[in-house]
């Protein structure tokens, strides 16, 4: 009887024995369990301390909890996709600047993305880049043949489709391959840092943002300016990529880590140089000028024979 009474009485656990509970600022009701107050107190703590390398652990916890709470909508509803566009203007600006100027020791993903990867940045930066390449390619072709009276300028619309295919496949397929590879390595070697697919897409998308001003600079028909802008853009965005992915693979075997880094950089270089070579080729000019010379020779010879 006494035991039953004891069990039937309302028991209070954890309220007095937990020394941290009295200092918590949580306003949630404890009826739902003890998880919620812990979430809120953890969310309140690290944000006040600022972000640095030593805060990565608490940031990880907060980030994980945030992401678990956020993506609760099933994937066939509209709200699920709205969670990927949960950014403000200032955040997008910060992410773009963070991908252009690599800060020593600060990881782009941890600092800026912080488990809120968005699809707005990658999509619209790729779209801007596609149209920037197509427009600058057309302008540079026009300027190249400006003095030539025989040349009639025709806007080449195929450049848009080609550029779109190349850039969008780079921005989406390479992160897919990289994520697959990293996940496979994670099953073999336990890494301290692992990125989700969307975070990798985010990093790649924002790293392409440096190319937009570089592509606009390519209009200037000087080879020196073009190569300088390519090399500068490559250095900046490549270093951001390398510094982002180095923590994810440094625990791996050194050969594999070096191979991954080299592949990332090589693909980045390939994209930049490939775009330049295809859309802004200088060999066309030599061909047309040599054609012009051949026609002159033909005309002179026909005049001579008549």
């Amino acid at each position, binding site marked *: 009887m006494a035991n039953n009474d004891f069990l039937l009485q309302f028991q209070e656990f954890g309220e007095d024995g937990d020394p941290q509970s009295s200092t918590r600022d949580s306003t949630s009701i404890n009826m739902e369990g003890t998880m919620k107050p812990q979430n809120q107190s953890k969310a309140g703590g690290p944000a006040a301390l600022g972000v640095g390398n030593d805060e990565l652990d608490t940031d990880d916890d907060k980030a994980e909890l945030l992401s678990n709470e956020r993506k609760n909508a099933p994937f066939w509803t*509209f709200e699920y996709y709205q969670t990927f566009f949960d950014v403000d*203007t200032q955040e997008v600006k910060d992410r773009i600047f963070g991908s252009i100027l690599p800060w020593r020791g600060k990881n782009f993903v941890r600092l800026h993305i912080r488990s809120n990867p968005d699809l*707005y940045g990658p999509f*619209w930066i790729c779209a801007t880049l596609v*149209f920037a390449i197509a427009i600058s390619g*057309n302008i540079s072709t026009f300027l190249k043949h400006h003095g030539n009276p025989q040349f009639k300028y*025709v806007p080449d619309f195929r450049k848009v489709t080609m550029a779109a295919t190349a850039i969008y496949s780079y921005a989406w397929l390479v992160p897919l391959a990289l994520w697959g590879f990293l996940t496979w390595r994670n099953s073999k070697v336990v890494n301290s840092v692992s990125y989700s697919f969307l975070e990798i897409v985010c990093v790649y998308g924002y790293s392409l943002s440096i190319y937009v001003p570089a592509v606009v600079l390519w209009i200037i028909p000087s080879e020196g300016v073009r190569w300088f802008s390519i090399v500068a853009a490559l250095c900046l965005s490549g270093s951001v990529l390398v510094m982002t992915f180095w923590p994810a693979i440094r625990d791996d075997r050194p050969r594999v880590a070096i191979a991954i880094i080299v592949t990332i950089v090589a693909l980045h270089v390939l994209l930049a140089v490939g775009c330049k070579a295809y859309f802004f080729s200088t060999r066309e000019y030599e061909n047309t000028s040599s054609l012009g010379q051949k026609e002159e020779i033909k005309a002179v010879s026909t005049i001579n024979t008549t």
Partner: protein
Amino acid sequence: MAEVDEANKPLFAGLSDVSISDDIPVEGDISVPLASHSADDEFSTLDEPVKDTILRDLKAVGNKFVHVMYPKKSSALLRDWDLWGPLLLCVTLALLLQGGSSDSKGDEGPQFAEVFVIIWFGSVIITLNSKLLGGTISFFQSLCVLGYCILPLCVAMLVCRLVLLLVSATTVSFIIRLLIVTASFGWSTFASTAFLADSQPPNRKALVVYPVFLFYFVIGWMILTFSPSS
């Protein structure tokens, strides 16, 4: 009828008084009460001549054109959205852009299908973008606004074609066309922003306006680089 009554008289004596004839009026209201008594219920649009129907739609479209050219804070575009105007403008623009620059080398300018797809696909993408960012505007309202705001660029296309016909010096004509296209592109962006920006939370306005800017920039670029086949 009378013979039947007489034959049945002893059995159905009381029933012979009941006759369904025109003498006894049927009372009561059998009309179904309508939920909304809008203006359309007063007359049926099936009976009116086709000319009236077409003219009514054309007037609505024209009214919205006026709202685009003088963008004020009005809800006419949003409230009574229709897609006739955007379709008309899109087809006109695509036809005007198509009439030139097919070379023997195979380098061709934008074809009708490309322009059409860019305009409609671009509008859908921008609408999806603004809805994903948390906008309160509906899908078709946004399509309507974006389509109607192509009107300044359409006008610029017509003017550019005239300039190309009349002015032979290429540099002067290019500068004139550049000014016209820049002005109309700015007008389009400003007009659509006046309608769209209010439906967004204030810290995301720039995120929504930028794709609209890009969209009209690309269309303006296509107009500017249009060169008719000689």
